[in-house]
């Protein structure tokens, strides 16, 4: 039960959603992070703009050498998409392990990215895939590199009146990729999630969810691996989280273990 009032507005198109967001309030997509946070009173927007019926936000397509995923695609849509399985298989693999089937039937990639939970799975995947997040606001649309998108815990480069419309993922011929996570056994959120993309030339990109309060590309480890050294500096220079699921020391250990598993999977 949500115990305080708010207005409900339903947007039929991206432009309508942007206009409604300009009046205040928050976008409502699958509701699977927003509604629980409102029940806990961690969030109390005066208005919700339901973007769940906007056809333009749905759908997955190829555009040149990019796979374009509508922000309103559910985790389930992405896990079962033939295009995703073929071109960015890590996304299908990762999406298929988010929460449980009922969560995957409602939760969306756009909602997850905007929410930027430090333990969410999408952030590591979009970072390692070198994806771009396309957003629409009152002054038009702009593209934000995943590496510039996550700014801190639950904070992103998205402005309050902007809507994520799509995620564009470069399709690399011959690349191998994987997402490996150590999940919290009840919710399946990542205690540690490691995404690795290995290009055809053997160079790797590595990103982590769950490790720090902000998901990150581990460029220090990438440099080591890409110059033929072994990965000794996992999560160096970032503050590693410590909570009742895993201490800082254990998380750091897990980050090393899950990087090894990911590297083996793309070997």
């Amino acid at each position, binding site marked *: *039960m949500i*115990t305080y009032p*708010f207005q*409900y507005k339903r947007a039929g198109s991206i432009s309508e959603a942007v206009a409604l967001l300009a009046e205040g309030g928050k976008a409502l997509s699958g509701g699977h992070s927003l*509604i*629980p946070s409102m*029940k806990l009173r961690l969030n109390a927007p005066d208005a*919700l703009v*339901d973007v769940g019926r906007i056809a333009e936000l749905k759908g997955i397509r190829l555009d040149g050498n990019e796979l374009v995923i509508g922000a309103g695609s559910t985790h389930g849509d992405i896990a079962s998409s033939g295009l995703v399985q073929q071109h960015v298989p890590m996304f299908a693999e990762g999406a298929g392990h988010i929460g449980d089937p009922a969560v995957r*039937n409602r939760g969306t990639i756009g909602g997850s990215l905007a929410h930027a939970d430090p333990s969410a799975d999408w952030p590591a995947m979009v970072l390692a895939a070198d994806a771009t997040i396309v957003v629409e606001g009152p002054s038009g649309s702009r593209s934000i590199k995943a590496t510039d998108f996550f700014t801190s815990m639950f904070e992103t480069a998205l402005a309050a009146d902007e809507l994520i419309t799509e995620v564009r993922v470069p399709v690399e011929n011959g690349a191998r990729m994987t997402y490996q996570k150590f999940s919290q056994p009840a919710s399946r959120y990542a205690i540690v999630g490691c995404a690795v993309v290995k290009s055809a030339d053997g160079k790797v990109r590595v990103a982590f969810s769950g490790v720090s309060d902000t998901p990150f590309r581990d460029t220090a480890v990438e440099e080591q691996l890409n110059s033929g050294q072994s990965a000794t500096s996992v999560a160096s220079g970032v503050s590693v989280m410590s909570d009742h699921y895993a201490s800082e020391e254990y998380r750091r250990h897990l980050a090393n273990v899950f990087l090894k598993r990911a590297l083996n999977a793309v070997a």
Partner: protein
Amino acid sequence: MQTATLPTPVTQPRSAPPEPVGTGVRSFSLTINGAEYELNVAPWTTLLDALREYLDLTGTKKGCDHGQCGACTVLVDGKRINSCLTLAVMHEDHQITTIEGLADAQTGDLHPVQQAFIDHDAFQCGYCTPGQICSAVGMINEGRVKTDADIRELMSGNICRCGAYPHIVDAIRDVMQLNPTAQ
């Protein structure tokens, strides 16, 4: 074969629902188990609260109210969802199926999954059961299950505090006519 008496759609619940707080009550209708229901509720009413508190469809249970237990699972356009994490007003024009709507409306015969839960004694207290059954029906529609391990993984969103899991798996395997030793 057991038969069930289907509840007739009610527009007036037995007990007075909580008064919506604040302004902005909305009037809309929901299609539940093939019947139209008129609702006058505040937009912050979840689908679960609408079913239980306003429409007297109390078969759907509230366990955690946070998407974690699956007791509130219903089918929306054939897909299983947690009714506690969605607003009723978001589901205008959708086909909602609750546990009350699974039995055959003409004959009253139970849905095969309901019957299998009885045959296999797949519950103890029964609190999780409507959610387990709706979730199993949704899972069967998804068409991805081949083994017991698939059943356990794809039913992982439905928690049973009594631990009736082995019989739940038996019931679902039976309905799907799967080979218990399939790997």
